[in-house]
């Protein structure tokens, strides 16, 4: 009889400790999942901030910019040249893609440059599928010689930078 009571007490205590342990485990798991959600959110916010902050830096890079005295001015010749060697700049930027889009005249179709009536230059593409675009307006300029006078011709454009998003 006494043994049975003792067994009951041990069982009672074991269950109690087990429940306490399970309770704390669930509480810990809940805390961890909330925190990892926060980490994910922070990662996305930092990636976005990083891309937005990178836009001006990328536009003003000597590989793409008109010259160091002007901001947000992209040299069209440099984009053409850079498009052919951009693979060697893989992982150079913390971004998924870089595109320079001509915004005038407006076209219903997206045509990749170089081509007749093209609308955009693909400067860099990491082939990532999970990204979001952020951008700013820029001038796209090139120097041409007309009737023996060299002059710079500029048109409005948009620099779009793809931000990597964590899944």
């Amino acid at each position: 009889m006494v043994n049975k009571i003792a067994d009951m007490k041990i069982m009672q205590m074991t269950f109690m400790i087990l429940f306490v342990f399970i309770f704390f485990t669930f509480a810990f798991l809940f805390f961890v999942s909330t925190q990892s959600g926060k980490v994910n959110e922070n990662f996305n916010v930092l990636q976005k901030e990083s891309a937005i902050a990178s836009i001006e830096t990328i536009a003003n890079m000597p590989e793409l910019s008109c010259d160091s005295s002007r901001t947000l001015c992209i040299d069209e010749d440099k984009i053409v040249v850079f498009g052919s060697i951009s693979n060697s700049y893989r992982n150079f930027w913390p971004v998924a893609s870089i595109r320079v889009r001509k915004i005038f005249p407006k076209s219903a179709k997206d045509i990749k440059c170089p081509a007749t009536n093209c609308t955009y230059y693909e400067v860099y593409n990491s082939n990532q599928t999970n990204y979001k675009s952020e951008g700013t307006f820029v001038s796209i300029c090139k120097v041409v010689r007309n009737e023996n006078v060299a002059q710079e011709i500029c048109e409005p454009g948009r620099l779009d930078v793809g931000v990597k998003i964590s899944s």
Partner: protein
Amino acid sequence: MNKRGQYNFVLIFASLAGAMILLLAIYGAVKAGGTFQRQNEAEIAKSIDIVMNELQAGFAGAATSVISFPKVTRIKNECNLNSRFGENVISVQTKSSIGEDWTVNPQEYSIRNKYIFSETQDGKKFYIYSKPFETGYEVSDVIFITTGDYCFVYPPEEIAQEIEGLNVPNIGIQSDNGNNTCKEEAKKVCFGIAGCEIKVTGECNQQRCESEYDFGFITDENGEIKYYSENLLLGAIISEKADYECNIKRLLYRSSRVADILSRKIDLMNMRGCNNLLKMDLDRFAITLQNATAEDLGDIYYLANDLDKANSKGGECGLW
């Protein structure tokens, strides 16, 4: 008797289980605390990168900023050349009140598109300066992160003016007219004279030099020699020799890539009737830069000077 034994067993069992749960909880809390500290440090490292984007000097010439931390923080910056463009690896360690003083194996964050020169020091306030690096054309902005105090003893006029213009709080100037803005414990940097921890020797002595200190070398307190040119002087003063020379290699390689792009741009310009005669010079310059080191900075200074002069003759068909 039996009841007592039964009571004792329950007590011992409960105490052991309770102690185990308590120990497990403490262990979990310490581990979780460490993880959050590492997470926080990784976020700081990424934020520093974002702050540095805002600091790109561009056509402003130079930019200055301060980062303050609530706790004593250590910013480590290593340069490595694992790829042609190389990278700066930044890690942040914060002082902890539990366990180890500093986080062991902090989260590292790679930055490939910036050139960061810094010293490894602990502090709550870090000063960040940004200046353009040019080899005729602009290559990139260089960024300096310092927390220690420096005292420039009798610097040449142009360097003194630049420091004053930048309003750099941790670099004082002791000038020959008696003015002294140096802090007592600051590391002394002498220009041309001995008697300081760091000595700067100017080697630019041709007519095309704007100043004797346009390029030269510095000798630090360990007797190590670091070659610099123009805006790289502060980098040579504050950085470890290995990291400094690695960053210079990265910069010069980047410059060779820009020269290559400019050379190809000439082909496109020539097709539109805008002739430029720099192609051959640029191609040669790009080859020279590809494997150049800090020791070549003097020669590169002269070559860049000549290129810049030739380019300005191109007028509207100039490349930069």
